[in-house]
């Protein structure tokens, strides 16, 4: 049973307004489709401007989609009315990247965590306090912290508080929007382990949005790579990481700095910048920066669609022939996260 089915999600931002000239729309999300099963982590990977954060927020209806569909637990999210949407919100939550702005500085930790419980009337009186204490413990924090304010805590602790807040309403699905990007290395590891444990204990599904492929590898069952608002490659974590087919995925993999000086790797350094999402190139959006030896004028004319090539689905006309530079994508043991 699929938990979430997203089809042809589009989110365009109109620039300009009532008194300003409008420019071309910013095509933040330009036709994204994927499925998510219960207990599974799908990683949405890409660099800034690729639209990955917009996908997460639009599915949760924190902003309205331009078009498309998202069916969650059998219900079309985009046609829910306000009351039904509020009820459904219990089942889908989000944790944010910036631990310093994701908590209301004027609310105690306990109130922040209890907010969902209060809004949905999940408990009353002393029971609320008990639940808050249990949640704090579950994320590895001292329940006594409930009376303190966010500024007294470190980034990693704040992230945990944010996770506790999301768990309070007992969701089935959590959008993790770059949850560890702003954290130090050792803290990052703590939070990743926590997320893995929670997934195992509560059967949660994650849409894990990130730009760091090594981080993603810790939690992802499947990976979707985004570029300029579209998914350009998608498959199991193992296939995408060991035998990528889209030239952008290959470039991304080769650019990740690895803590291993002995490892020989030829790096693919892309030229130029990511084009603006309001002016995507014609044909294949990646073609101006593409290094594929088979790239030709067809790429600037005809937009490739996602199709199965080898072990992944890739949107490239020449995906069958994508070379794999030395040191990139070699098999490295099982990629199915083992949470021992």
């Amino acid at each position, binding site marked *: 049973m699929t938990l979430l089915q997203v089809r042809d999600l589009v989110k365009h931002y109109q620039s300009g307004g009532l008194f300003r000239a409008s420019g071309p729309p910013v095509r933040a999300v330009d036709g994204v489709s994927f499925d998510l099963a219960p207990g599974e982590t799908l990683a949405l990977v890409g*660099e*800034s401007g690729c639209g990955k954060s917009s996908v997460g927020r639009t599915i949760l209806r924190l902003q309205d989609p331009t078009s498309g569909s998202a069916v969650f637990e059998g219900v079309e999210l985009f046609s829910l009315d306000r009351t039904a949407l509020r009820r459904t919100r219990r089942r889908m939550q989000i944790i944010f990247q910036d631990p310093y702005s994701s908590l209301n500085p004027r609310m105690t930790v306990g109130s922040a965590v209890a907010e969902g419980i209060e809004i949905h009337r999940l408990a009353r009186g002393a029971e609320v306090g008990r639940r808050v204490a249990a949640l704090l413990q579950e994320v590895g924090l001292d329940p006594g912290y409930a009376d303190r304010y966010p500024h007294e805590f*470190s980034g*990693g*602790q704040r992230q945990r508080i944010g996770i506790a807040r999301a768990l309070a309403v007992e969701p089935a699905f959590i959008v993790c929007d770059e949850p560890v990007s702003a954290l*130090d*290395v*050792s*803290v*990052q*590891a*703590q939070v*990743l*382990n926590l997320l*893995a444990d929670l997934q195992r204990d509560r059967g949660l599904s994650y849409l894990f949005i990130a*730009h*760091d*492929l*090594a*981080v993603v*590898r*810790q939690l992802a069952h499947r990976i979707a790579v985004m570029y300029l608002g579209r998914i350009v490659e998608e498959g199991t974590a193992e296939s995408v*990481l060991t035998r990528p087919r889209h030239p952008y995925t290959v*470039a*991304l*993999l*080769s*650019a*990740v*700095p*690895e*803590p*291993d*000086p*002995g*490892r020989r790797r030829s*790096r693919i*350094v*892309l030229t*130029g*910048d*990511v084009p603006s999402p309001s002016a995507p190139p014609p044909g294949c959006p990646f073609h101006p920066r593409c290094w594929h030896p088979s790239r030709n004028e067809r790429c600037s004319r005809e937009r490739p669609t996602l199709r199965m090539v080898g072990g992944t689905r890739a949107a490239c006309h020449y995906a069958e022939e994508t070379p794999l530079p030395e040191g990139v994508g*070699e098999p*490295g*043991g*099982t*990629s*199915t*996260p*083992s*949470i*021992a």
Partner: protein
Amino acid sequence: MTHVLEVKDLRISFPVEGAGRMYPVDGVSFSLDRGETLALVGESGSGKSLTSLALLRLVPPPGRIDAGSTITLGDTDVLGLQGEALRRIRGKRIGMIFQDPMTSLNPVLTVGDQISEGVRAHLPVSRREARDRALHLLQEVGIPDPVSRLDAYPHQLSGGMRQRVMIAIALSAEPEILVADEPTTALDVTVQAQILEVLDRLRASHGMAVLLITHDLGIVAGRADRVAVMYAGQIVEEARTPALFARPSHPYTQGLFASVPRLHGPVGRLRPIRGNVPPPSAWPSGCRFRPRCPQAFDKSETMPPLLPLDPEHRMRCWLAETDRS
């Protein structure tokens, strides 16, 4: 051989409200030779950024560099310089690039103006000559269409471009040393690769020494000749890069390595360092890593000095005394 840069016993203190002072940088020593890259690795609170600011005497008040610290640039005592003499080494002998290219560039000046400003601050050239030099620098850092970019404003450029502009500004007076404080942290990984490539190329062509400040072990592996790991205001391990990665010896370094997720090798549960980084106002007594160290023992209650493990490999840990293979 005189080192291009030598830092000895650098100590930076800040006042603590109501109770004396705290020492976020507490006795740091290292040296840098011509053409080499030294990476200063650490997490937040390790003191690495403050250390780099001290080199240019840019420590923000009320912090101050304490007596007993020495910073020598060639044969110039940086801490003894005043006024004009100090200004002359900033940019001319040590250049610096910062983490966030968005806020490090002046939004109301064009790129060309900012680079020329850097040039003319140190070289006696005319406006026209400075502009020519700015153009040349833009080419060197790999900015496409540099002629039109000279008149662009920072907000018209992408993050990667802005960082290149910052590098151009830092290089404008041909410094001997480039201090790069987390130069690629705010950038996408593909752009990061480009920028690191530019830095490498320029280092080779200009013969500069580079002090690279970062928390990313991957960048260190690829680009640094030597590494110094910082924790709680001190250097806890230093070695040549291959040696450090082959044999990380200080328990903190080992903890760092165990908590970094990898692209290759088996995927297993990460093993983070338990606990949190202590704040400078509350450094633990004795070995500062002791509360979090899985190998702490009775001697850890005394602060260890940097002890040798191998030639060119030292660590601040009593375990160096026992023969560890």
